[in-house]
Structure formats: structure tokens, C-alpha cells
């Protein structure tokens, strides 16, 4: 199988980048997109050209390391699939694919398809947790959680922090990411004591990290590999407004 790649090559953070065309004929439809890049890189190295840098680790769609735009869509055309799990059988033989890094002011490009997503860690550090030092927990079954709440919390907790939501959003908003954590913890009884402060601090940090605002476009939900629903943003806004009111 043959594919024609146009890949963003940028040597370092503050250097200019450009699109470079690579034609590859030795591909197999069962390969993942990342394996196709592996094969391309092996060829490049043997030719003495520097391989394409892209982030990846588990290659099972759960670590959240990988991700780039394929023809303008974060993680490519297959719904609920990260690029490591996206096989080439979903493309036509000879198809042209444009691969670009996540584009957002809060995610500066480090090299080629690799970006800096450390802003996500800083959002979590601003309250995306329940304060419970090791050793101070009551028995697990002392905290009863209704199955529906637990299931909905799990739906939100499934976020892998890949950043596709930010990349897909025309405003480069991190609302889906932030709201997923606020919802996960806010839906559980354990998360109630810090619910207000969590919403206030996480939203404030998200704004300070130069992500844009949410205008309910829904691109984030469409590309999220874990199917996080837009409704978590409504929940975040609800918690934020309530908390702001109570904190006056």
C-alpha cells in the first residue's frame, strides 16, 4: 500500500518549520499510523535524513502520549481512536495525508509533531484531586456511591489527557479536559468538600494558561478518543458559577 505524507518538520521550539512531502510505498493496511511512521523513519535514517519526531508510548490508546492532526482532524478520521490505534485500512491506496502537530498557543511545538502539553499538568495541580493523605481513608464500603453516579464519574474520568480537544477547538479551549476532571470528582461524594474551590481554581488556571474560551462548538467532543461528552462543560460552568456566587 502506498501513501503520500506531507509532514510538518520543525527542528526546535523557536525555529521555523515547513511541510515536507514523503512518498511511501511499502505500507501494509494492518499497520497503525504510528507503525507507518516507524517504517518511514527507518528509511529516512538509512538515507541519512533525520527521522520524524512524534510522541508515543503505550500504543494501546490509553497513555495519551500520541496525537497529531491528519488532514485537519485530530487523531484522524476514525471516531474514538487515537493515532496509535488507527490502522491504514481506513485510508485509500495512494491517499495524500497532511500530518501536523496540535496547534494551540498553550501547546508550543517542541519538534516536528511533538508539542508541550505541560499546561494540562498545571491545571490538574490546581485542584484536580481529592485531598486525602495516604493512611487516612475510611473503609472502602463506608462510602456508598450510587452506581449511576459512579458510572458517570467513570465516563468523565476516562480522559487520557492527549490534547485533541484543544487542537480541534477553533478557540483552542481546554474546557473539555478541565471539565472532565471537575465532573469526575464532582459527581462523587468524596469530591464534595473541595467541589467549589476545585472549580474556581482549575478554571482560573485554565484561563491563565492561555487556552481560549468555550463557545459550545462541540469539535472537542467530536474528536475525543474517549468519547467525553460536551455535557461535562455544562457541569463545569454550573459548578463554577455556583462556586463564584458562594465565594462572593
Amino acid at each position, binding site marked *: 500500500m502506498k501513501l503520500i505524507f506531507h509532514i510538518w518538520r520543525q527542528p*526546535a521550539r523557536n525555529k521555523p518549520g515547513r511541510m515536507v512531502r514523503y512518498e511511501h510505498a511499502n505500507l501494509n493496511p494492518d499497520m497503525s499510523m504510528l507503525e507507518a511512521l516507524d517504517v518511514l523513519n527507518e528509511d529516512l535514517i538509512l538515507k541519512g535524513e*533525520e527521522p520524524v519526531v512524534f510522541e508515543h508510548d503505550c500504543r494501546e490508546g*490509553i497513555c495519551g502520549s500520541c496525537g497529531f492532526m491528519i488532514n485537519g482532524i485530530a487523531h484522524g478520521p476514525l471516531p474514538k481512536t487515537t493515532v496509535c490505534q488507527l490502522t491504514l485500512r481506513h485510508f485509500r491506496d495512494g491517499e495524500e495525508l497532511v500530518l501536523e502537530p496540535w496547534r494551540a498557543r498553550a501547546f508550543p511545538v517542541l519538534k516536528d509533531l*511533538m508539542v508541550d502539553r505541560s499546561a494540562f499538568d498545571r491545571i490538574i*495541580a490546581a485542584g484536580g*484531586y481529592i485531598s486525602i493523605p*495516604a493512611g487516612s481513608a475510611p473503609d472502602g464500603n463506608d462510602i456508598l456511591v450510587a452506581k449511576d453516579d459512579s458510572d458517570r464519574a*467513570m465516563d468523565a474520568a476516562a480522559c487520557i489527557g492527549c490534547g485533541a480537544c484543544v487542537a480541534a477547538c477553533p478557540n483552542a479551549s481546554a474546557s473539555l479536559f478541565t471539565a472532565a476532571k471537575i465532573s469526575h470528582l464532582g459527581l462523587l461524594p468524596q469530591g464534595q468538600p473541595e467541589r467549589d474551590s476545585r472549580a474556581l481554581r482549575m478554571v482560573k488556571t485554565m484561563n491563565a494558561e492561555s487556552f481560549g474560551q468555550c463557545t459550545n462548538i462541540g469539535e472537542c467532543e467530536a474528536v475525543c478518543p474517549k468519547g467525553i461528552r460536551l455535557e461535562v462543560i455544562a457541569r463545569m460552568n454550573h459548578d463554577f458559577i455556583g462556586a463564584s456566587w458562594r465565594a462572593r
Partner: protein
Amino acid sequence: MNLDARIPSGPIDKAWDKAKFEMKLVNPANKRKYEIIVVGSGLAGASAAATLAELGYNVKCFCFQDSPRRAHSIAAQGGINAAKNYQNDGDSIYRLFYDTVKGGDFRAREANVYRLAQISVNIIDQCVAQGVPFAREYGGTLANRSFGGAQVSRTFYARGQTGQQLLLGAYQALERQVDAGRVKMMPRAEMLDLVVVNGRARGIVTRDLVTGAIESHAADAVVLGTGGYGNVYYLSTNAKGSNCTAIWRAYKRGAAFANPCFTQIHPTCIPVSGNYQSKLTLMSESLRNDGRIWVPLAKGDKRAPNEIPEAERDYYLERRYPSFGNLVPRDVASRNAKAVCDEGRGVGEHGLGVYLDFADAIKRLGRAVIEERYGNLFEMYERITDEDPYKVPMRIYPAIHYTMGGLWVDYQLMSTIPGLFVIGEANFSDHGANRLGASALMQGLSDGYFIVPYTIGNYLASERFEKVEPAQAEFLAVQDQVAQRTRRLLNAKGSRTVDSFHRELGKIVWDDCGMSRNAAALTEALGKIRALREEYWRDVKVLGAAEEINQSLEKAGRVADFFELAELMCLDALDRDESCGGHFREEHQTADGEALRDDQRFSYVAAWEYAGPDQPPVLHKEPLMFEYVHPSQRSYK
């Protein structure tokens, strides 16, 4: 080399309490005066870093990924064991202890395993309180399932993403401490060596993976939670970045390496489909609870699975092990899969696969129940193979998944280098020769939340520490060696890529030191590995520079260490002239092909000491005593 395991005397059920009471404590006001380095941010590393910071220590935590949340613990699917007995089905701490010692084929230390079983209950409490969304019953209580060879339901789970949810819990606890200023998080930094000053671990040397800067970090104690070494096989279920470099460099600085040949082959992975393949995907073995494993009765039967009538199928696990059936432990399930494939009854294009069939379960429970239990796994399978497992049986084959071997540690989780603690998969401690399902998460969190925070305090309070600086000679010397090694890899300017060497190395180790081993093949493998290692240093091709993001260079350093580790694995496998757990020596099997232990000669932990370049390592033996669970031939029939 001193292999004193420091196991507390007296009854096993009081041992940990006794040890905790006897430990020296650090005055709360003094804790902030100590610096602790934690390398790795998986379940073990993140939980240790967070907990040490909660106690008041100054912690620096390192990971090579862009965020601590990416550590490979995140990929664990099935669950975490705990002896809660919430299901009232006869579980107890003693039973979990017993199952783990037996499951490890009597090659683990009893006292460590007992402590693990005790702590298991605290872990669940801790994780629930953190907001880990475990599966629940309608009444709001925690749900359990039976898992991988256990006859009680003691496994807690969060859909098929238990590892992810537990890791995010630990990560969030860690970020809370980052926010409090008590942990300095150092992502995209790879530990490339350990610094030992006056016989004690006092720091590490890292490479900043963005700028390429080689840097020294000093501390009063160093904790390694850097995971296992399954990627020595190239194809494994580990993340691509998982590597042995941290523990290997510690080994070369004097930490004994224990039982390197104890590796676990997981029975339920998606079979290899082509030579471009970069990794293997695990399907949680919880699937074995409802799926039935079979192959055609006749050799070379190429019919589609649905066309093979019931009478012409061989449900070989149910046939050979009527009481455990499809739920036999991992080593037994893997070996049996290999055996039927070796007989020519394997399925799929290359004949390296067996069926895992859900047709009966769907008939019995309905599709909705199966979807609820395994939906995400079925989706993942379909995405990779383009086959719908609701309609066609899955094809599975064993793959390397976990390494029980690792750095030797005593009961306090300290290695043979004072001040170097090793936790989680990186140590050898609790699983013997075979790990039971849902026990890895338990061990990582037990070590990190509940053991090492105590034992480090004991170490710090027992010693006096002279001040060390990254600018002093010992650090500069190590930094220099690290930089030289990096230059050597870049300057080889050979003709082959790092991956091509790694693939070739992996094939040797898989063929000769994988699911079954024999003396002749291991001896031959040693020669092949050495020859390939020499070729590697001469002919590897790494482009780019040291002072930039250079993923080939990162890989090249890791693969160089895998070469050396592979040799030690084969040496250890040769030395252990018995079969036990995941280590199956063809020379030692019962009449019906089961592993045959030799307790007279091999009831010990093999701890290898580095003796210098091109010198044979020295074997030290820690004898294993079994006072509670008496060694018997494991039987799952």
C-alpha cells in the same frame, strides 16, 4: 555482598507491625531537611513521591514522558486484588498470601508476600477515598470479580481501565504535592546513572530530553520505581519507552539483580500480524472468565471457526484442568497455548494463535452483559484486527508482559546499595517465579503508599549524612561517563538502525529465553547476544546531535543496556536448572508436561553482582524458607 533480607522474627502476621514499631522515626520538623529522589511516576513512583511529600520530605520526581500521568501502569486493564472478603466467599489475608506464594511457584519471600496481602485492604480504601471510580453494585457498594486463577472474587476494577484510574489517583495526589511545593516534578528527564558516594546512593545523573543537557541531582536517598524490562524482547505489551536503563545502571554501580530470568508471558494477547509490528496488545485476562479457549482437534484444520462443529474442537484447558479450566494461572495457560500451536493446531494466518470464544457466554448471559463487562476490550480488538469478536472468536497468543525479576531488595525495599530503594515492578520482591493476575497494581501501590514511606524514614534516621553537591568529584565523574557513552553512540555512524538491532536481539531472547528454555539454546543465545552487542557498538547508526530532542539517541542508550541485561537473563536461566513458574526448562518437566521444581537445589533467590566489564557476574544466593505455605507441586487439575 551482604544479602541480609532483614525479615522480622516471630509470627508472620505480626511481622510488619513489629518492623514498623522497631523503625526509627524522623522528627516531623526535620523531614523537610531531607531530599529524596524518586525516579519513575507509575503506580509505585507516583504514590511514593506523593506520600513522602505528604510526610514532609522534599521530593524530586523524574519521568522520561512528557507528564507523570503517562507511565505504563496506565495500561493495566483487569483490576487490583485485595483481601476484603466483601463478597463473603471465604477470602482472607491468609488466603491471598497463600495464593500468591503458591502462584509464584514457591520462589518468593513469605514475609514480603504476607505484608502485601495485609496492605491490600488499605490500598482499596485509599483509592476509593481519592475518587477512583471503581465498579459498584446497585446498592452503592464496591463490585468484585474473580480474576486470573483465583477461586474467590477479590478483584476490584474500573471497567477495563483499572490501571488508568489508579494511576490517575496517584498522579493527582502527586500533583497536589507539586502544587504545595513539596514535590518538584521533572518530566522529560531520563535517569542515565546512579551516583554512589562513600558507599551510599546519593544522587542520579539525568539527560534532559528536550535540551540534551546532562545534569546531576543530589539527595539523601534514591527510590527507583522504573518498571520492568519486558522490552528486552522488542515485541512486548510494555509501552515503547519502558526500559531497564535505571535499574541496569544501578546494577553496574553495585545493586544486586535478582532472578532476571523470571519473566511472565501473558496468555491473552493479540497475535503478531507482520514484521513491521511495533508492539503487542494485551487483552485483559478477565476475558478468560467468560471466554472459552479452544483449537481444532485436527492438525492444520483451516476451516473458519464457526464452521468447526463442537465435536471437532479441543477446549484444551477445560480438558486438562477440569477444576480451574480457562482460569489456570498465566504461565500454565501460556505454555499450553504454545504446546497446541507447536503441535500444528494453532489458528490464524501464521498458526500462532488460539481461539477465545464468547459464543456460549453471549448465549447464556446475553450480549448486553458481555458488552458491559468487556465492551472496550472488544472494541479494541476489532479496531486492531478488523474482526468482530461478538460474531467471530478472538484469536490470542501469549506475549511477554511482566518481569518478576528485578533489583534485589530486603524487607525494607532497600537494595544492596544503602540508600537505594527499589519499588514496584523494578524490584524482584513479591511474585516469585510467576505473578498472579491483578497483583501488579497491588504491589506497586503497596510499595509506594504504605511501605517505602516508612522504611526510608528508618534509613534516614539511622544514618548521618554528609552534605553532597552536584558539583563534587563523584558526580562530575559519572556525568563524564554518561556524556562519553552518548558520544560513542553518536559517533559509531554505522549502517544499521537501533530498531533493527533491537528486533534481532528480541528474537533471540524470545526464541531461547522465552516461554520454554533449554541449556543448549541458552548457551547458544549467549554467544549470539555477545556477537550482536559488539556489532551494535560498531555499526549502529544514530543521527542528530546530543544537544537536542533526539529519540533515536534515547532508544540507542536503552537498547545498549538491554543487550547486557539479555546476557544476564540467559546466564540466570542456565544456572536455574529446574522449572518453576514462568521459567520452564524443557529438561525438567513431569510426565504430562508440567513444570518440575527442584526445591532441594533451587529454593533460593539468585542475586547477581556486577563484577566489571566483560567479567562474569557473581552469583549470591538468598535461601528461601517456607514456614507457612509448604512447597508442593502446583496442581490446577
